[in-house]
C-alpha cells in the first residue's frame, strides 16, 4: 500500500521533471530559427486493481504521454507561400534598382545632351578648332559613358546569375537534406522528442527551399513530405529520393531552370525574381544598343555626306554599333564634316553640320535614353509598392506563425513555477509514504 504511494509520488516527480525539461528546452530555444514550442501531455497511468474488485483504489500515478509540437500546418504553408512571393519581389526589385543605377548614374543622358550641345555650339562658328575639339571630346565622353553603362549592366547580370546559380546549389543541398530527414522520420516513434526535432528540421528546410522557388507539399501521416517545385509542378523530393535542379544561361544572359531535365519556371522565390530581372536586363541592353547604334549611324552617315575642314571627304566619327563597343575613331576635330560635299578647305558653309544635327535629332537618342530610364524607374517604383505590400503580408504571416508556434517566455516562466511545485508536491507525497511506512514498522515495537 505504502510502496504504491511511493511509486505514485515517484511517477509524478518523474512527469514533473520531464515537463520542467521541456520548459527549459523551450526557454533555451526561444529565439532559435524554426523552433516550434513543445508542450507535454501528462496522462494518468491507469491499471486494473490486483484483486479485481472495482471498488478498490487502483491508482498508479502519471507519465509523460506525448511531447507535443504546437505547429499549425496552415500557417506554416501560408508563411512559405508569402515568403516565396516576397523573395521574388526582393530579388527582382534589387535587380531592377541596379539596372536603374547603372543607366542613371553613368550619366549617359547628360552626355548625349552635351554632345548635341557641342554640335549646336559648333554651328555658331564651324571653322573654330576649339569648338571642333569640343565636339570630339564630347563624342569620346559619350562613347565612354555607353561603355560604362554596358559594363555596369553586364555586371548586374553577372551578380544576378551568380546568386541564382548559388541558390540552385543550395536548393539541391536542402533537397538532399530533406530526403534524409524523410527517411529518419519514417522510423521515428510517434510523439517522441526525436520526431519533434525532426519535424522542426523538416519545416525549417521547407521554409528555406520556399525562399528559392514556389514549392507545393504533400504530407504523409508519418510526417514525411513530398515536394514539387515550380510550374508545371515537378516532383523534387519524394520520400528518400531527390531530383536535381539545374540552370541554363542563354546567350542574352537570361536563365532557365529544369528538374531532372524537365523545364520548369520557378513561379516564386529568388530564382523567379532573378529570371524576371534578367529578362528586364536583356530588354534594357537591347534598347541601349539601339540608342548607341542610332547615334553612330546618324553621325557617320552625315559625315560621309560632307567634307572635313581640309576639304577631304568626311570620315566616320564612331566605330561599333553596340553600347559596349561604341568608340570614337576620328583623331582630330578638323575631321568633322561641317561643309557639304564639294566644298573647298576652310569652308564656313555649315549645311552638312545642319544635316548632321537634323539626323541626330531625328534619331533622338536623348529621348530614347530618357524613356529607357523612365520605363526602368517606373518599373522600380511599381515593384517597390508590390514589394512593400508583400513584405507586410509576409511579415504578418510570419508573426501569425510565431504567435502560434513560438515560445512565450512569460508562459514558460509560469510553467517553470507550476512544474517545480508539482515536483515538490510529488516529493512531499513520497515523504508521506516514507512516514507512513515508518509508522507501520514502529507499531510492532
Amino acid at each position, binding site marked *: 500500500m505504502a510502496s504504491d504511494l511511493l511509486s505514485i509520488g515517484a511517477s509524478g516527480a518523474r512527469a514533473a521533471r520531464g515537463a520542467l525539461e521541456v520548459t527549459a528546452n523551450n526557454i533555451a530555444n526561444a*529565439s532559435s530559427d524554426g523552433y516550434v514550442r513543445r508542450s507535454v501531455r501528462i496522462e494518468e497511468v491507469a491499471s486494473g486493481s490486483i484483486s479485481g474488485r472495482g471498488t478498490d483504489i487502483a491508482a498508479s500515478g502519471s507519465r509523460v504521454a506525448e511531447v507535443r509540437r504546437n505547429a499549425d500546418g496552415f500557417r506554416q504553408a501560408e508563411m512559405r507561400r508569402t515568403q516565396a512571393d516576397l523573395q521574388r519581389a526582393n530579388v527582382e526589385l534589387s535587380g531592377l534598382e541596379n539596372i536603374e543605377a547603372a543607366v542613371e548614374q553613368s550619366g549617359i543622358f547628360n552626355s548625349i545632351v552635351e554632345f548635341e550641345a557641342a554640335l549646336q555650339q559648333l554651328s555658331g562658328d564651324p571653322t573654330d578648332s576649339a569648338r571642333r575639339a569640343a565636339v570630339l571630346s564630347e563624342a569620346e565622353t559619350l562613347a565612354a559613358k555607353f561603355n560604362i553603362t554596358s559594363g555596369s549592366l553586364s555586371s548586374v547580370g553577372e551578380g544576378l546569375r551568380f546568386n541564382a546559380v548559388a541558390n540552385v546549389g543550395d536548393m539541391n543541398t536542402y533537397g538532399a537534406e530533406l530526403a534524409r530527414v524523410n527517411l529518419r522520420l519514417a522510423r521515428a516513434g510517434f510523439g517522441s522528442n526525436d520526431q519533434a526535432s525532426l519535424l522542426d528540421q523538416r519545416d525549417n528546410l521547407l521554409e528555406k527551399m520556399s525562399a528559392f522557388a514556389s514549392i507545393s507539399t504533400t504530407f504523409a501521416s508519418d510526417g514525411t513530405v513530398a515536394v514539387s517545385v515550380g510550374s508545371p509542378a515537378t516532383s523534387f523530393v519524394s520520400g528518400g529520393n531527390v531530383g536535381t535542379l539545374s540552370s541554363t544561361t542563354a546567350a542574352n544572359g537570361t536563365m532557365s531552370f529544369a528538374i531532372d531535365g524537365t523545364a520548369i519556371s520557378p513561379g516564386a522565390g529568388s530564382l523567379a525574381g532573378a529570371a524576371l530581372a534578367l529578362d528586364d536586363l536583356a530588354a534594357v541592353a537591347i534598347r541601349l544598343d539601339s540608342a548607341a547604334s542610332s547615334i553612330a549611324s546618324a553621325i557617320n552617315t552625315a559625315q560621309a555626306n560632307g567634307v572635313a575642314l581640309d576639304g577631304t571627304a568626311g570620315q566616320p566619327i564612331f566605330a561599333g554599333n553596340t553600347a559596349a563597343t561604341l568608340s570614337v575613331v576620328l583623331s582630330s576635330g578638323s575631321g568633322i564634316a561641317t561643309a557639304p560635299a564639294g566644298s573647298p578647305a*576652310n569652308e564656313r558653309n555649315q549645311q552638312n553640320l545642319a544635316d548632321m544635327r537634323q539626323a541626330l535629332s531625328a534619331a533622338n537618342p536623348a529621348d530614347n535614353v530618357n524613356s529607357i530610364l523612365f520605363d526602368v*524607374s*517606373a518599373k*522600380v517604383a511599381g515593384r517597390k509598392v508590390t514589394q512593400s505590400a508583400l513584405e507586410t503580408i509576409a511579415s504578418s504571416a*510570419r508573426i501569425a506563425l510565431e504567435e502560434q508556434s513560438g515560445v512565450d517566455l512569460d*508562459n514558460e516562466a*509560469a510553467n517553470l513555477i507550476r512544474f517545480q511545485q508539482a515536483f515538490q508536491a510529488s516529493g512531499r507525497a513520497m515523504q508521506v509514504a516514507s512516514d507512513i511506512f515508518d509508522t507501520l514498522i514502529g507499531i510492532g515495537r
Partner: protein
Amino acid sequence: MINLSTGAFYERSTTQIGSLRSRAETLQQQIGSGQRLEHSSDDPVAAARLRMLDREERVSAVDTRNSQTAENNLKFADEAFGQAAVMISRARELALQAANATTSDEQRASIATELDGLRQNLLGLANGRNAAGHALFGGQAAGNAYQIDSATGVATYVGTATLDAVEIGEGQSIVPGNTGPEVFSFTDSSGAQTDIFAELSALSTALRAGGQAAADAARDGLTMLDTSFDKVTTAQTVLGSRLAWLEVMTERRTENMERIADERTVMGGADLAVTMSRLQEMLTVLEASQSSFVRLANLNLFSMLR
C-alpha cells in the same frame, strides 16, 4: 487562448522600428540634398521631366553663347558702319570743296590725294575681321571680303553672296552682319551697279585731271556720296534692329531659365519646412516606440522570480 510569443513580439517591434527609422532616414536625406528625388524611381514622371529640363537648360546655354557671338559680330559691324559714315561724310565735304569754282587745280589734286586715303581706309574697314577672325563683310568667306588688284588698285568683292543665319534658340535665327555689297554697292544715276570704292577712285582720277571737268565730276560725286551715305546708315539701322531683337531673345531666354529653375524646384525640390516637420514627427514617433519597446521588453516574468 492566443499565445503571445516572445519571438513574435520582437519580430513585430523590429519591423515597426526599422520601418520608422528608414522613413526618417529618407526624410533626412531629402533635407541634406535639398532634392526630393534620390533615384528616378522615387518619382519616375518627375525625374523624366527633370531630365528634359536639364536638356533645355543645356541647349539654352549654348544658345546664349551663339547669340553672344552674333551680338559681338553685329557690334563690330555697327562700329565699322559708324566709321564708314564718318569717312563718307568727310569725302562729301571734300567733294563739295572740289565742286567750288574758286578751288584751284592744285587744291583739287591734294583733295584727290585725301580721297585716295579715305578710299584706302574704307577698304581697310570693309576687309575688317570679326571676333572669330573671319571677314566681317565677306559673308561665309574665310579670308578678305575685297581683293585689291596690286597693279590697278581695283577692289573686287570675293566673299559669298549671303551670310548664314545663326541659331539663337526657340527656333529663331539671326544674320550676324552684312555682306560688303549690301553696304558699299549701289546703283548710280545711270542705273548701273557700282560701289563706293570704284566711284571714289573715279572721282579722284577726275579731280587730278583738273579743269571744269573736275568741278563737274565733284558735283556728280556729291550725289553718289549721298546715295552711299544713305546705304551705310540704312544698313546701320537694320543692324540696330537686329541688335534689339537679340536683346529681346536674351531676355526671353533669361525668363525661360527662371521658368526652368522654378519648375525644377516644384518637380524635384524638397520643401524644407514640410520635410523638417515631417522628420520631427517621425522622430517623435520613433522615440516613443523605442522607449515603449524597452519598457515592454523589460516586462518579464523572470525578473520577478527570485
